[in-house]
């Protein structure tokens, strides 16, 4: 049983890798590559958020705040102060982790609506700071971010690279890079969930009192997962900034926080692969509905509501349940 379990864990990762390998076959231009790269970065962010929301059962309506802080830390450190990308990304993540810990300690004592309000406020405060600190952030006009570079080697959407003797475009290189990051993010998340730490996290969701009487320090684990999900957001925010090459305070906005939560709820709370699907659907949807741009927020609200009512488990878990039911029926019919 244990072996089967382990295999199924890695099977998901393998399927995801295969999908990421196949996707370029359907892409024909740099715009489409850009979309998919963006999906991969946002997906990795919500994989982290899902640890908090889906597994530990704590809400955060301010996660774009951490995403934005990572993006701006990278923007300011690499752009204004000329830091190399990787140290900027790591120092930014550590800083955001510390902020999340300091903020999380008191607010994670709250439950339900109160926690929503508190995290909402955290997000708002960060967005306001980014908007107002013009000298550092450029204010509402935003700021340019240099290309991602490691040891003098730059990764730009407009560059040309050779990979294993193959000539590839910059946007293809970004896609490969983001795919690898997503796979690593998923692998870490899966490892975390299937571990003593992961069980402690999930027990906080399942029954906080049961967790505490078997020795789980629930306050500690809530802080831990809040910090981990904030670090995920910060790292992905940094990459997002490099990828776009230009950021505005919109990356830390309330709308962005809601987008993240909607991705988690739509894809499937507590389903690591589900939230990736959620990220894909909600990134592509505005493209399809480009004519109704002013209705975007309304659409997201509607999607959130309909998902909650008709598939509370989310898109992927509901689909897999339907498929396995069909297969069982079919197998039963043949027998």
């Amino acid at each position, binding site marked *: 049983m244990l072996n089967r379990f382990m295999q199924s864990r890695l099977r998901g990762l393998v399927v995801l890798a295969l999908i990421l390998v196949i996707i370029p076959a359907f892409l024909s231009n740099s715009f489409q590559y850009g979309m998919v790269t963006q999906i991969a970065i946002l997906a990795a962010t919500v994989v982290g958020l899902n640890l908090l929301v889906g597994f530990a*059962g704590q809400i955060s309506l301010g996660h774009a705040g951490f995403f934005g802080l990572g993006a701006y830390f990278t923007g300011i450190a690499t752009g204004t102060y000329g830091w190399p990308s990787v140290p900027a990304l790591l120092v930014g993540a550590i800083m955001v982790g510390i902020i999340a810990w300091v903020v999380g300690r008191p607010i994670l004592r709250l439950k339900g609506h109160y926690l929503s309000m508190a995290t909402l406020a955290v997000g708002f405060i960060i967005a306001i700071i980014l908007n107002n600190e013009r000298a550092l952030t450029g204010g509402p006009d935003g700021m340019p971010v240099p290309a991602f570079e490691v040891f003098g080697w730059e990764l730009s959407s407009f560059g040309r690279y050779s990979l294993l003797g193959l000539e590839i475009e910059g946007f293809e290189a970004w896609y490969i890079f983001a795919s690898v990051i997503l796979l690593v993010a998923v692998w870490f998340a899966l490892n*975390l969930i299937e571990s*003593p*730490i992961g*069980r402690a996290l*999930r027990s906080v969701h*399942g029954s906080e009192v*049961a967790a505490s009487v*078997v020795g789980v320090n629930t306050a500690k684990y809530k802080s831990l997962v809040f910090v981990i999900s904030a670090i995920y957001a910060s790292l992905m925010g940094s990459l997002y900034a490099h990828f776009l090459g230009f950021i505005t305070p919109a990356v830390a906005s309330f709308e962005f926080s809601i987008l993240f939560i909607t991705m988690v709820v739509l894809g499937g709370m507590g389903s690591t692969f589900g939230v990736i699907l959620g990220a894909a659907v909600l990134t592509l949807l505005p493209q399809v509905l480009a004519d109704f741009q002013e209705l975007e927020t309304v659409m997201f609200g509607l999607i959130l509501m309909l998902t909650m009512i008709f598939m509370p488990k989310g898109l992927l878990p509901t689909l897999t349940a339907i498929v396995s039911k069909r297969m069982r029926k079919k197998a039963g019919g043949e027998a």
Partner: protein
Amino acid sequence: MTALVEVKGLDKAFGGVHAVEGVSFAVEAGQVYSVIGPNGAGKTTLFNLITGLYIPTKGEVRLNGESTAKLEPNQLAERGMCRTFQQMQICMNMTAIENVMLGRHLQLKSSLFTTLFRLPALRRDEKTAYKRAADLMEYVGCGEYVGAEASAMSYGALKRLEIARALAAEPKVILLDEPAAGLNATETAALEDLIRKIADQGITVMLVEHDMKLVMGISDRLLVLNYGRVLAEGTPEEIRQNPDVIAAYLGG
């Protein structure tokens, strides 16, 4: 010899209502100690006070001679106290065996680094924990659910699962809050055997229970509560002959 669990002048008031008032008793290591009393007598409140879920208004609880006044439930678990609940507390978002493995939380120490990279040390520990949890499920009598989701289990099996989880923590003392509630006669008989087995292992058992046959047969000592106060304390024989108890509780 100091008692394993010592309760001194314990008092808990909710507003003006004293759910538990001036309760004192001591449980020696290795005993099966039962708390009985009519509904609303304060039995569950007493358990919640002992396990640190409630903070007493007055009085104190000592575990192995140490005052538990400043300790959180998880710190009490570290000191060897574990419990089950009348309103079962099962993590329905986990599989059955993961619930039991959760009980191994204190024995499984792994760093975040080891966890993220799923290093061999963690895999080894997990395998051992899994095996031990499976054994425990067999031991309490819900072995057939090893591969199941917790949400797929029957009521009686979940009650056993909760005991398995508590046992996984390797407690010195285990508090069972109405383990027989909702069980039929056969299940109750099996539960009696299980409690005996647990006590024979040297684990101190504290029990809140309504089933008098079960309680009288299994307990070394009994505490009778009525309206939050101690009505009587003693061996089953003494309790059975206590006129106050007969009048107030057994309705004789």
